[in-house]
């Protein structure tokens, strides 16, 4: 490898460049959150090497990138399943079944929070408020897809969809 960030694909680096362009030239570090998401999308999770690669690309101290990766809870510092389901159990969701929805998924998949199914397909996470309390219960699929009104039927449908 010529550079520490060669492990990221040219496509990922191009996406990161687009993020970097949003900020003043001497503030590349501003793109670190987006860059870590792009890297996570590509690699599935953020290994030490991936975080170091992002830090090197943005010219920041690796530990500064690690601070960010460990501070925001949608970064995965451990491998996760193909589908990461994050269920909001915060109070407004819980009032409309958020905790029950999580229990339902746990039972269906046979895993608890922070566990991955044996086939590596699903990882279940407990989420905090996603800002969609009116649609409770809500859950996120792979961080970016919000699913609303997740009553048993909808959960069954979602799990069936996830191939």
């Amino acid at each position, binding site marked *: 490898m010529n550079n520490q960030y060669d492990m990221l694909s040219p496509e990922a680096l191009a996406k990161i460049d687009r993020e970097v362009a949003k900020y003043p030239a001497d503030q590349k570090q501003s793109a670190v959150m987006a860059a870590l998401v792009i890297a996570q999308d590509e690699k599935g999770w953020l290994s*030490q090497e991936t*975080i*170091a690669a992002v830090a090197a690309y943005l010219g920041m*101290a*690796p*530990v*500064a990138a*690690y*601070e960010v990766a*460990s*501070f925001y809870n949608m970064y995965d510092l451990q491998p996760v399943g193909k589908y990461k389901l994050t269920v909001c159990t915060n109070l407004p969701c819980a009032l409309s079944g958020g905790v029950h929805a999580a229990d339902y998924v746990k039972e269906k998949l046979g895993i608890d929070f922070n566990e991955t199914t044996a086939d590596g397909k699903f990882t279940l996470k407990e989420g905090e408020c996603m800002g969609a309390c009116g649609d409770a219960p809500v859950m996120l699929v792979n961080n970016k897809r919000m699913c609303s009104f997740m009553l048993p039927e909808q959960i069954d449908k979602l799990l069936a969809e996830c191939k």
Partner: protein
Amino acid sequence: MVEIEIDGKTLQVADGSTIIEAAHQLGVYIPHFCYHKKLSIAANCRMCLVQVEKAPKPMPACATPVTNGMKVFTHSELAVKAQKAVMEFLLINHPLDCPICDQGGECQLQDLAVGYGESASKYEEEKRVVPDKNLGPLVSTDMTRCINCTRCIRFTAEIAGFMELGQAFRGEHAEVMPFIGKTVDTELSGNLIDLCPVGALTSKPFRFSARTWELSRRKSVSPHDGLGSNLIVQTKHDRVIRVLPLENEDINECWLTDKERFSYQGLNSAERLTRPMVKQGGAWKEVDWNVALDYASHALRDVAKTHGGGAIGGLLSPHSTLEELYLAQKLLRGLGSENIDCRLRQSDFSADGKRKGTPWLGMKIADVSRLDRVLLVGSFLRKDQPLLAQRLRQSAKRGAQISVLHSADDDLLIKLTARAIASPSQLPAVLAQIVKAVCALKGVTADPALAGLTVSAEAQAIAQSLASGGTSGILLGNFAQQHAQAATLHSLGRQLASALGGGFGFLGEAANSVGGYVAKAVPTGAGLNAAAMIQSPRQAYVVLGAEPELDCADGAKALESLSKAAAVVVLTPFKSQTMLDYAAVLLPVSPFSETSGTFVNTEGRVQSFYAAAKPLGETRPAWKVLRVLGNLLGVTGFDFNSSEEVRTEALGGQPEFVSGLDNAIDSGALNLTASATGFERVADVPIHFADPLVRRAPALQQARDSAAPAARMNASMLAKLGLVEGGSVRVGGAAAVTLAAQLDTALPDGVVRVAAAHSATVALGAMAGVVSVEKA
């Protein structure tokens, strides 16, 4: 200025001061953990909450700026309640393992808990446990004790210049850590131990060896680089087991380099020479002092008698005390020798006889922090004078423009404005270009010798920065002073400074680099300098505190000359196999910690100190040994009863700063035509190999800065030789050595960088010059 009132006392403070600064001015102590005067304000520990009139909530004294008429109450009911509340929170997850904690007895949390804590905790839930980290050989961790004040993090980022520590995770899970698997490698890492207000970061070498109240302490001065950092040397049973900084804002501020802090381990090295030894019939024998001194004096007298005093050479370490250097030169001159030098790594002595005075920093150390424009010429500053690098790092942050002219481009962790990187032979020419460009910008007539020069873009950028205003300083580093055309760099540097109307100086390599001149430990007249007395072997040598194979510009040649000599008298705290090979007599003399003495630092400041511990075994202070040798050899003027008497004679009084400091030089014609064919060697002196004491400090020897020397080249040079990183390279100088190839992208073409002062590279010979390089 604003007027405020703290606890009923009125005072005037500067605009923009914080409450804690104002309180400090008044002598009022406000409890705190995260606040540190040298670090940015974090305001996170909340221990310094005080009451401010009209404020509904308690305010953090560290972060709250004073306003005119402000009334502050540091011990009111509201303030104390807030402080006690914070203390309770600090303690709920703290292990309270003071009896087994190294910080016990000198712990800010422990001290403040006495004043602000309750006798029992109301917290009955599970306590937090935080995994420890391996930060390297110097700093030990007990992270469960961490109170997350982030002083350590801010230190690495702000003072050391690179964020090696961070606070990962959040909330109660927050933990201070390096990046996964990394250690803390800054040359200033030991300061983390001082900064940590609890027992989370403690000294690995000192760990579990003593309680603070068991230690005796003495003020002292660092024997390493030219700054002369002030030390507190702590001993237990006459053994130095810890060194801490003694705060001196004019020199080291509140910091120490790791070298200064941990080199004490070398004082307790197994290689300490504890009895005089003489070689008889090829065999070494431990003998009484009388015998050894008799032997030494006879040997020297015999050579002087037979071959004349000029057959004796004196190689004196610039890390010796002023008194030692003074007596050594006096002894040698008494024997009729003018071959005296303490400038062991210098290779160009053509300025001798042309200097107007003692070369020095050219300004006060504290003034370096006030420079607005700086050019560093030939300096591995971060490793050679780390605390000066620290000062410039802060200067750059406040807007000072720092530029570099060098043959390597190591990251100084300083924001540089411009840089020119050239091979050693080209350095004078590039410096000359900068002079020419500055003269043009300033409308000053340039030296006619510069007329034919074309100014490169790099030189022009440096010139423009230098000429763009403010106070400027041109500083020549160790590499420039060791350069084969050091005198030319000296002349050009002065020309540059004079065109700018700014300062000019030399960064002192060793504790007595300036003191050596003051002590007259340099040749005069026809006397041979350090290089010459090695090139033209002497019949006898007196070696004081040095290991010439490692401490001289050409170690291989030094070793050869010493080996051929009829008698080598070595005054040394340490013995080595090499020394046993070439020496005739070894006299165990005190390292700095076991003698009184004086270092004159790079700014000319006279700093004397007392012994912190009794001499080990039969070791004796060198000044006493030299005095007796003087008496035995019948040299006059050797009736000193104390080191103070020696100092007074050497300095002609008791000045705070020595006189005669002057960087002026009668420059002859400039020689800018140097060229080199083949690979030029760039030799740095690695920080932990620079002197005999630090070379024997085991913990420092495990640090990343102590890695084995490699043959470093840029990518195109590696490619040219068909080398890959890690592959074997044969570097040929006086003799060939085989080293691992290492990529150093910052090096110029035609350069191979091989560290000096290391046993693995001694055979190469001269630090400067051309070497052969080939794939092994």
